[in-house]
């Protein structure tokens, strides 16, 4: 079906405003982020001097940054592993229609649908140092001593664990619905035929269902990585990066340096470290999209 010249002109006119907006408020700030990272901008300063890679050098040498980079990796990888395993279990349990399915789906979706800042503050209360309801349960079950309960957000190791678990809690519903969409798209007779041929549940799942779900699992993981690696809300609300910077991640460090610390250049340099990961994800996403169109 050809597109006429008139259509092309109208198309440009209709697409123009959106394009202009995106160039001005996504393209320009993105370019500025790179520009700031190689300059010397501070809040309130006028003028701009090119300083080359000086910001990156000072950033890379700082132990805070190295810590944050490492925490970001731990935070992203652990929560993604938990999310993907959990999402598959949940999706399998939700695949068939049964009574109460919609009610269960509603409950399971709550963490994703509620504003994350608000969900995180709920967890802050659950993990409170004195009134933690989890600790109350642990004491009752005689798993911990009443006078030496875990400090979920006060101990570096437990704080990292808490941040990971809360983020997993938040992202699990999202991945579940995506995986579920992939699962329900598989024709039912294929796994059933495998079952008739004598393949057990696990064998069917790992050798037939999983390979067929590859593209959709890729999508779930790629979005999961973006949402986790670039998130600072959970960390900001639960721990503010503490105790002793033990949960500081790249985005929160960029916020504390660039916005609260007024060092725009160094903050920009830190957030530019998110770009390689995003670029890899974008590239993989294009491959997924490309394949989906060919099939």
């Amino acid at each position, binding site marked *: 079906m050809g597109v006429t010249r008139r259509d092309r002109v109208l*198309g440009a006119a209709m697409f123009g*405003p959106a394009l202009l907006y995106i160039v001005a408020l996504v393209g320009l700030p993105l370019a500025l982020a790179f520009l700031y990272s190689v300059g010397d901008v501070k809040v309130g300063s006028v003028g701009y001097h090119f300083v080359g890679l000086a910001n990156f050098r000072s950033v890379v040498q700082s132990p805070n940054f190295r810590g944050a980079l490492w925490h970001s990796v731990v935070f992203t990888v652990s929560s993604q592993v938990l999310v993907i395993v959990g999402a598959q279990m949940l999706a399998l349990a939700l695949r068939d229609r*049964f009574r109460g399915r919609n009610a269960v789906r509603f409950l399971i979706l709550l963490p994703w*649908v509620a504003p994350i800042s608000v969900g995180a503050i709920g967890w802050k*209360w659950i993990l409170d140092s004195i009134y933690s309801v989890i600790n*109350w349960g642990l004491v009752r079950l005689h798993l911990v001593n009443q006078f030496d309960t875990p400090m979920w957000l006060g101990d570096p190791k437990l704080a990292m664990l808490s941040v990971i678990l809360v983020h997993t809690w938040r992202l699990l*519903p999202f991945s579940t619905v995506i995986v579920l969409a992939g699962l329900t798209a598989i024709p039912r007779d294929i796994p059933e035929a495998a079952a008739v041929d004598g393949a057990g549940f696990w064998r069917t799942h790992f050798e037939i269902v999983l390979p067929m779900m590859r593209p959709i699992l890729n999508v779930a993981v790629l979005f999961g990585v973006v949402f986790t690696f670039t998130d600072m809300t959970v960390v900001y609300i639960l721990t503010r990066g503490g105790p002793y910077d033990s949960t500081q991640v790249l985005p929160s460090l960029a916020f504390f340096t660039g916005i609260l610390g007024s060092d725009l250049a160094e903050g920009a340099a830190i957030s530019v470290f998110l770009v390689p990961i995003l670029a890899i994800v974008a590239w993989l996403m294009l491959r997924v999209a490309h394949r989906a*169109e060919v099939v």
Partner: protein
Amino acid sequence: MGGRLPTRVLRWVVLLGFATLLAGPFVWMAITTFKRTTDLYDVKNNPFLFNQPPTLEHLRLLFKETLFLRWFWNTTLAGGAVVLITLLLALPAAYALARLTGSWGQRLGIGIFLTYLIPPTLLFIPMSRVVAFLGLQDSLWSIVLVYPTFTVPFSIWLLMAFFKSIPRELEDAAMVDGLTRFQAFLQLVIPISFSGILTVVIFSFTLVTQEFVYALTFISSAQHQTVGVGVPIYLVRGDVYFWGSLMAACLISSLPIAVFYNLFLDRFIAGFTVGAVK
């Protein structure tokens, strides 16, 4: 349907376990909302029971003595404005990509899709300069200006798929009857796309309520805040947490969105699966 008994038992064990973990915090918010402070702060009490009669004091405090209603209003106002801007930009753009740009449309569409991989935490530093340059710092209008950066790409992507599913013959027939293409878009395509447009409205609005980073960065005074930042940041005075009111606010700001969202879930998923599911 239903399956064998062991399968059904296993299914419910998995579902109930996850549902407890995922929805549990909201139950705990609800219990906290109606509990007296002295009951909350007595560590000897069973936290799941009402050891003292329930109270509405936390709700009274929240509505009468905090800026909660103001934040609610701010969020609604910003949400409404963002939705309007999003529709004005995304509707024509999506139609152009679906019908008027030929092979270019495909590529531009993918480009648009990729822009929603660019996160606020990469843009917030330069964006704070842009906002300051426009004189919008500490104003609700800063987020009205900036939020369409994530609602517009997502909406274009959703609407583009929606428009492609409408048969071309419909517009062709209307154009034979003397309408111009643009008139056909306004008078035919938009009315029959009502459900797609409604989806965009719901999702743009929920994305506004969920955003945290930009609002935290651009808006510095409590009375201009949205619910998403106001509740977790400004409801805490110094180091004093008013847990009862705080949890009431969490619950009130989560549930209405959850109900709406659930109604439109399937469309939303379609926007994320990039065609990996047919």
